[in-house]
């Protein structure tokens, strides 16, 4: 019996991919909607430790919100979406202050934005633009330095709904 249980467990893993752990610390961001990996009812709640395990990317770019180029660090949006198994077409990002913006899912692959957690090596807090700040590499393509993408660059991200 034990053996067959283990087999079932292995099979389950194979079908569902790596199952999402339950968050141990306070929630940083909550995913809703069209996701395959869930850990709290119908949502995927990610805590700091889970984000820490993802590869960190660095984007150094000029933005309208700071003077001069700044260095942002954090996981790529693509990796985070993969982690929660996002399958939709649009991300509806809601910030702590209820700012909401819709971002096409394909942006993740097209422009490689990151969910920045640090600026110039210092952790982003709600006092600044933390805990998560969607940063595009604005300098890399001319079309990114436009109001359209500045509007998509939500900060103080709390909830991401996949539509």
């Amino acid at each position: 019996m034990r053996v067959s249980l283990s087999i079932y467990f292995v099979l389950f893993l194979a079908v569902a991919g790596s199952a999402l752990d339950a968050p141990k610390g306070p929630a940083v961001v909550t995913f809703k909607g069209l996701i395959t990996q869930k850990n709290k009812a119908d949502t995927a709640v990610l805590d700091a430790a889970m984000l820490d395990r993802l590869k960190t990317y660095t984007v150094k770019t000029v933005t309208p919100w700071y003077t001069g180029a700044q260095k942002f660090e954090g996981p790529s949006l693509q990796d985070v979406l993969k982690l929660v198994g996002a399958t939709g077409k649009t991300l509806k990002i809601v910030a702590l202050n209820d700012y909401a913006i819709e971002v096409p899912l394909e942006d993740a692959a097209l422009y490689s934005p990151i969910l920045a957690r640090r600026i110039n090596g210092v952790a982003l807090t709600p006092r600044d633009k933390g805990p998560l700040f969607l940063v595009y590499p604005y300098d890399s393509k001319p079309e990114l330095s436009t109001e359209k993408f500045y509007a998509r660059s939500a900060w103080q991200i709390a909830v991401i709904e996949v539509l």
Partner: protein
Amino acid sequence: MKNVLGLGILVLILSFGSVIWVEVRQLRAVQAYLPVGTDNVLWSYAQLNFEALKLNRVLLLALDASTIDTDTVSLRYNIFASRSQLLLQSPQLKRIWEDGGFAPVVERLEAFFPEVEAGSVNGEINWNREKVKHALSVLDPLLPDLARLLLASNIRSMADEDARNQKLVGIANESLFVGFLQLILAIAFATLLYRQLRVARAASQAKGQFLANMSHEIRTPLNGVLGPLDLALEETDNSKRSDLIRIAQRSARHLMALLTDILDLSKLESGQMTLEVAGFDLNVLVSDLELMFRQEALARGLVFLVVREEGFPARQLGDSLRLRQILANLLNNALKFTKNGSVTLTCSADPENLRFLVADTGVGMSPETVKTLFRRFGQADASVTRRYGGSGLGLEISRTLAQLMEGTIEVESLENRGSTFTVTIPRKLESTSEAPLQALLAPALEVVEVPVVPLPVATQTIGSRPLTVLAVDDVAINLLVVSSLLKLLGHRVLTASSGPIALEVMAKEGPAVDVVFMDLHMPEWSGLETTQKIRAQEKPGHRIPIVALTADVLTESREACVVAGMDDFLSKPIQKPALEQLFQRLKLASGAAADRKT
């Protein structure tokens, strides 16, 4: 005309270039207006206000609640803090409050946070009733100022928007202006092209008309050649036969003159005509003309007068043959168009110009005819040409020649009263020490100055020793003509109907031949090819002169002849004087050089 077209194309290219330049400038202007990183400024100020009000509300609620929800208050406080910080961080936001004189407000706003956080540990604020009250007391007076800041930012962004719109309208206007300019240029250019097209069409039509006339003009004298010759063949009476042949000869001469005219014209048109510059005797020129036309005037029953006014100089520097051609043409016309009365040539001069007046009492011309008289290919009335003969090219040639001499030809005419043509040529003097003086000094200076008298054209036969001539031509009749003429002058003639035969004859008779006459256009070997072959088999020191003989009278082929190894050039139809001159040039005439009168 060509230049105008070229200029038009240049202007068009320049205009298109300038359009590109303007557009590049506009693109830069637009880019300058879209600096990297423009976010919606108004939105940021609105958010700041919302967050201030939200925090205010949360604090008021906490004041009334039994237990304070610390998490909610902290969140609102943090978000408000982040919004306030943005005013210092973002250059765009900074610009607005700095320019608007809101620095004291921002100072108070930024001072709010340290004041609230005073006494907290690790940035963790202990939100008790006292703290909430304190925060409210600082925040409350800030609220109206933040609202004013929002209004100011709204006005500022509207002003910015206005400026941008105005800039865009300016750019659009510039584009419109350039587009309009292009339209005008395009229309102007199209008009120019259309006009050129019309000119070209008219020219082509005129050429067609001219060719039709020429065809007629060539046919008429040809009839005059062929008809009498046919009759002469049938005629048994010797004196009548001579008359017929003379008529044919006159027609042939006319045809020849016509072709010379056409050739002159084409030379003038292509700019190949160059004038000689040599001193000559004006009196000789005028006397020659008098001699030339007196006989004809007499035959027509006209009075021919030549008047030399006082001060008419004896000498002039220039091309005497071409000046003679102009005057002869005018006199010829005057005689032709005058039934009775007189033709007068008046020669006068002022310090600058020579003036020749050719006046007649003939049919005269209408003002319309005078207008088109000199026009290129512009035969005023085709029937005139037919009635009076001539190529109708004489005046055109004369005027162009006069222009080459920097002179003019003017005409005044009254219908049925007669015409007066005035030729004005600038006086040009030989350099002072020249002519007579130098002739005296000539032996000492060893300068052989050929005193320039129009060549007493060698109409008199100059004695030549009997020569042996090889004539090469593929057309039998041409061989017949040239051998008859040469035999008439007492020379021996060998003939060859092709290049290979000529080479054979040269191999056999080589040393006996004095000169070769070579047709240029032949099947098998061309004249040039044959010449090269003859030159190749010649023994050194036995170079026999080869003379090109052709109807192809263009300058280019002349050069090709020299390159191929030919010595001289004779144009068909061959005439006796030209032949004699040729022999003189080749030093084949016996003692001719010594006898030559100077």
